[in-house]
């Protein structure tokens, strides 16, 4: 599956054709064996009964059919087992491919709009949509294939008994395999689509209600909100009812088709004689074979019944697929200008801004080169952080940027980002060990390097105090760390990178004076960056010799 290609059910089926063929073959063997088991044993018993009645029991070869019956029984079991195991192995492989596909789309997404998607929405896509899609071969494709093969097998038998039966068989096959699933799918498709949309809608309303619960309660208003949630739930329930109704009805109709088929088989094979008042089988039709046929038809009926669900599942898979495809990004959205080094940066008429709100800083001009240190100051709301983020390439900007005196696009430019380290206001700590978090800055960092940098940001004592030291696993989003610890840990990660340009957004918030001084000392000596841009509202040794830009 190509990184940037659109997802399609066909594409998924062909993603790993060999992995798919094995479960199909074993499943086919199991299904055919299942149908044949009933047919052959029916014929065997009938033939045995007939042989005794005709007095030819002693010459009847009973060993071969007996062995065939046992063989088919074992083949059916083994086939079913093999099918389930290999099919699930294939599905898990698909799951991996799909997950990575989602990841690639996320990576390809522009940095500034990465978070436009809520956590809940992403989780929903990741869990339930993927689930709907990977179920497709198991719920839709394979049962349909087995039913089709079941019908083909029976039609061979029918051809041997009386070719005239092929017509009713074909008509019923079309009903069972195509028309009924299609009709049920049609009946349910509206409900499936609406249900999926309602699901998302319901969740966002739930989060909305609960995120403002106290305010809504105080204002005597939450009942209204809760009532609307109930309404959505009620609609969802109606959709669920409609889907279930369609499936149950389809199954009932499937039975009816089988009954009609059985009746027509007897009608076409039988002759009514007025003299005796009984139905005879037509000339040349063997009673034993008819018994086998009827039993095989009953077995096919069992194969056909799950099919009515298949078009409903098909609808669900398609909705899931469409939702996942919404994540799809145009290929090569990122720019990358490889550059040897970063020694000079100048910005003219530069204004960073957020796409959604358009909020940002006043346009500014400045120039800096190796050895320079810049301190951005300004009242709250003047867009210091936005400006810094836009320099880091995280945020949209207008104006011109020159790197080493060459015009350069900063936004989402990997080549440029290799030369910078950016500490945002709320930095991210991964749910990995401390060492793994630090090594994101430099995969080659040794334990000594890590201890040294932890010492520089005044975290080494804390880490030494932990039971597992560097190997300590941090909890989700660094929730067990204080804000100051989180910031310092991420700063340590950045310092390991030793990029020429360091961008710091309020690095000293929530830190005491001694710690601030220690960090400043490190940034002035061992970990001194060539260029530094600092956003801070407090004085520090770091800002002492810096050029000030007032926003």
């Amino acid at each position: 599956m190509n990184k940037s290609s659109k997802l399609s059910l066909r594409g998924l089926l062909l993603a790993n054709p060999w992995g798919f063929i094995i479960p199909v073959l074993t499943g086919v063997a199991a299904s055919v064996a299942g149908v044949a088991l009933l047919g052959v044993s029916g014929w065997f018993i009938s033939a045995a009964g007939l042989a005794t009645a005709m007095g030819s029991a002693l010459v009847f070869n009973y060993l071969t059919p007996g062995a065939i019956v046992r063989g088919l029984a074992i083949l059916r079991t083994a086939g079913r087992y093999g099918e389930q195991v290999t099919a699930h192995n294939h599905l898990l492989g698909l799951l991996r491919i799909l997950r990575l596909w989602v990841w690639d789309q996320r990576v390809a997404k522009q940095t500034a709009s990465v978070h436009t998607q809520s956590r809940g929405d992403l989780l929903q896509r990741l869990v339930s949509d993927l689930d709907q899609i990977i179920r497709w071969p198991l719920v839709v494709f394979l049962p349909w294939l087995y039913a089709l093969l079941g019908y083909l097998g029976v039609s061979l038998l029918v051809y041997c008994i009386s070719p005239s039966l092929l017509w009713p068989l074909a008509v019923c096959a079309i009903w069972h395999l195509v028309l009924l699933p299609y009709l049920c799918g049609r009946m349910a498709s509206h409900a499936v689509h609406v249900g999926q949309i309602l699901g998302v809608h319901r969740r966002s309303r739930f989060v909305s209600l609960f995120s403002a619960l106290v305010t809504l309660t105080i204002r005597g208003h939450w009942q209204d909100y809760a009532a609307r949630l109930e309404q959505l739930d009620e609609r969802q329930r109606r959709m669920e009812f409609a889907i279930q109704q369609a499936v149950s009805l389809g199954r009932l109709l499937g039975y009816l088709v089988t009954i009609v088929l059985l009746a027509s088989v007897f009608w076409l094979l039988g002759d009514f004689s007025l003299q005796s008042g009984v139905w005879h089988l037509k000339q040349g039709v063997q009673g034993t074979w008819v018994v086998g046929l009827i039993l095989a038809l009953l077995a096919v009926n069992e194969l056909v019944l799950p099919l009515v669900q298949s078009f409903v599942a098909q609808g669900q898979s398609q909705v899931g697929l469409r939702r996942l495809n919404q994540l799809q990004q145009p290929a090569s959205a990122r720019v990358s200008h490889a550059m040897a080094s970063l020694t000079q940066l100048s910005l003219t008429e530069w204004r960073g801004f957020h796409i959604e709100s358009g909020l940002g800083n006043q346009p500014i001009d400045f120039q800096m080169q190796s050895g320079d240190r810049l301190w951005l100051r300004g009242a709250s709301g003047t867009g210091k952080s936005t400006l810094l983020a836009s320099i880091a390439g995280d945020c949209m900007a207008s104006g011109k940027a020159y790197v080493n005196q060459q015009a350069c696009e900063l936004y989402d430019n990997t080549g440029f980002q290799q030369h910078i380290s950016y500490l945002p206001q709320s930095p991210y700590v991964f749910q990995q060990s401390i060492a793994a978090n630090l090594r994101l800055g430099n995969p080659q960092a040794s334990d000594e390097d890590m201890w040294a940098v932890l010492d520089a940001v005044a975290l080494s004592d804390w880490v030494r105090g932990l039971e597992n030291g560097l190997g300590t696993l941090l909890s989700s989003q660094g929730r067990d760390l204080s804000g100051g610890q989180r910031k310092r840990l991420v700063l340590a990660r950045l310092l390991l990178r030793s990029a020429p340009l360091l961008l710091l957004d309020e690095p000293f918030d929530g830190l005491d004076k001694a710690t601030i001084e220690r960090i400043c000392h490190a940034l002035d000596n061992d970990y001194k960056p060539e260029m530094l841009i600092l956003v801070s509202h407090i004085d520090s040794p770091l800002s002492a010799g810096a050029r000030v830009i007032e926003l």
Partner: protein
Amino acid sequence: MAGSNEVSRAKKATRVKPPEAMFLGDLANQQAKRYRLAQGFGALFAVALVLQAWAFANVFSDMVLSQEFSIFFLMLALFALLLRALANYGRERVCASASRHIRYGLRHKLISHLTQLGPARLRIEEDAALSTRVYEQVDALDDYYSRYKPQVFMVTLIPCVILLSVIPVSWVAFWVFMITAPLVIVFMIFVGHKAAQANRRQFNVLAMLSNQFMDLSQGLAELKRLDRTGEARERLSYSAQVYQKTTMGVLLLAFLSTATLELFASLAIAMIALYLGLGLLEILPWQVGVAPVTLTQAMFLLLLAPEFYLPLRQLGNDYHAKQKAEAAATDLMSILNTPLSVQKAQVVTTEYTPSSVQLSYLSFYQLAWHETGRQRLAPITADIQQGERVWLSGVSGVGKSSLLHLLLGFEEGYQGQLFVKGKPFDQLDLSIWRSKLAWLPQTPEWVNGSIRRNLLLGITPPSDSAIQAALRDSQCEAFIKALPKGLDTPLTELGSGLSGGQMQRLSIARAMLSKAEVWLLDEPCSGLDTETADAVLETLEKVSQGKTLLMVSHDTHPIHWADKHWVLEHGGLHEQVV
């Protein structure tokens, strides 16, 4: 009869059921009527099954032996097939409806329980995770209630009916069924038990996998800057591969249990077919020359044989539904088992009202809050006058927020007394009291919608000039003007580029518009940098004049303009000079 009933009830009581099973069972009992109806349909189905087999057996044997068939038996067979279809249809609908009733009722209960818990719900989980429980986890019960639960009845009913109908036909077949059925069950339990354990571990691994994806996805901007997205992809790929491998290990075992079932069923069917065939040929080793069954009877047995094992095999397939439901039940129970605040049971015999209470707006007298042995709030005694502004500080966990939650009326299990304008708190009309409150928590509370909608949440819309005045006083005017859509800008879940300080200012504007008398603030500045926090506090000082205000704030953000400074400690309350 009555005696035996009692005995069985006593037995039931002593048998220890896991709480999940009890929970699921209780929910199912709510729909006992529907399930009884489903059992009725099930019985009809079983009868139709036997009827169909008998009728077809007659048709078949006539056809084989004399090339003719009786139209009566044919009609009967087709009628039985129709009956079976109808019974199945009815059963499916009834069970699905029972499942829907249970699930939607449960969801309703969960949501209203969570709303009543108020801020206490966050002790269970954050909201996004709660929404997963309320929606996905409740729906995870569907298979259990619509398929597994009714199937348990069918598993006992159908084999019994078939056994009964086989007795008059053939003892040998009866014994083949009798002997193989328990073997099948024993094997299923044996293998299924191991699979169940592995399955449970598997659930955890899957959750971890999603978690890892969400973690990496949330830190994606950082990974992109560090140019480490490739490594993250490899990590995801690797853990997915490990997951595939371990899952296959589990599935091999799980499918082995179904395969065992299938094998037994298939072999039993084959055995019966062989016995019947040889019997009909009169060459059974122990009965040479005698046919133990007629052809009709043989056909009858052959048709019933697969049906005997079918319900068991289906139950085996649906077994994971039970495990899924039990895993979900654990999560759902943890919500429902979080107690709502208990109404104060104790009758206050000595209605002691200190003299100061009459004069104060809010009075606490020996107000404390113990919950399950844990002290959430030490006994405090203090008064707040009308229009007084109080700064409450103290180390975290000492009960500052708990005091605010008490005042919001979400917790009623407190000890001691709490008076509002001289009236005991538990005698107040809670909705009237709450309408006088304004609430400003650490992270402002927003609903999905425009800024205007959020400002006017639940109040009669004031005039435009009043809105403008409130925005001006809370210093929101400038940044709202800068927004392209102004007041109609939607506040999405993640904010629209507004800073923390701006968001907090909006909630000040909202508090002003509500004309609340009492403002309760829970660390409104904790997420802000010092400079922004100072500016927000300055605004608060101006707009809250004349309001009765209780504000929790750390010493790092001192409230210099407060009339009183209370310091809450584990021993109680101390007043300090501001």
